[in-house]
């Protein structure tokens, strides 16, 4: 079975510092997609960044970047220059198209608090 593991239930970081959130996954598939989602206290889930497994280059979106290690099945999120607005739950998610289905599997989340 495909699983996504986020081993850090809670983290905190000082404003303007850098923080890395961990995510590992388990799959036997070779072609898949990985995502990080942010859910602020207001609840609406927002896509932060995505990575296609066939791409070796790590994705970046402004202050957000990933470290994708396919062989290790690791997909960590780095937030640089942390801002108070980054305070949220962060979910790592995995999707593949095996057997014609499209199922997104979410990790348990990491609650990030940015401290002033």
């Amino acid at each position: 079975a495909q699983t996504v593991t986020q081993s850090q239930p809670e983290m905190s970081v000082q404003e303007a510092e850098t923080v890395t959130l961990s995510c590992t996954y388990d799959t036997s598939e070779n072609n898949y997609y990985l995502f990080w989602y942010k859910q602020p206290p207001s609840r609406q889930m927002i896509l932060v960044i995505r990575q296609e497994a066939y791409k070796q280059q790590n994705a970046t979106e402004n202050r957000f970047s990933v470290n994708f290690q396919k062989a290790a099945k690791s997909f960590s999120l780095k937030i640089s220059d942390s801002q108070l607005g980054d305070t949220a739950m962060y979910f790592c998610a995995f999707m593949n198209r095996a057997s014609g289905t499209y199922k997104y599997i979410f990790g348990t989340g990491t609650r990030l608090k940015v401290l002033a």
Partner: protein
Amino acid sequence: SAVISQKPSRDICQRGTSLTIQCQVDSQVTMMFWYRQQPGQSLTLIATANQGSEATYESGFVIDKFPISRPNLTFSTLTVSNMSPEDSSIYLCSVAYPGNRYEQYFGPGTRLTVT
């Protein structure tokens, strides 16, 4: 991206009754999903509701309890039937675009409390 609205945003219902949650998308989309989320916890997929086919339910969720309609490419409903306090949760709809690298977008959620 997509703009997704859900109605109602929250409701308090008595056990034994049913509630229908509406999900409206501002663009046509094939792939739509319904999730359940306990506050502060992860998302649990209830079903996939692709237009033109019957909804596909995940283990632990059945059509009699969570009937879904998908009449067109911009709208879906999820009904929570014969509710019990265990159904108290946040219900989220989402859509995904294969043509946009399968990015998934979420509605604001419906907070349901069953008394």
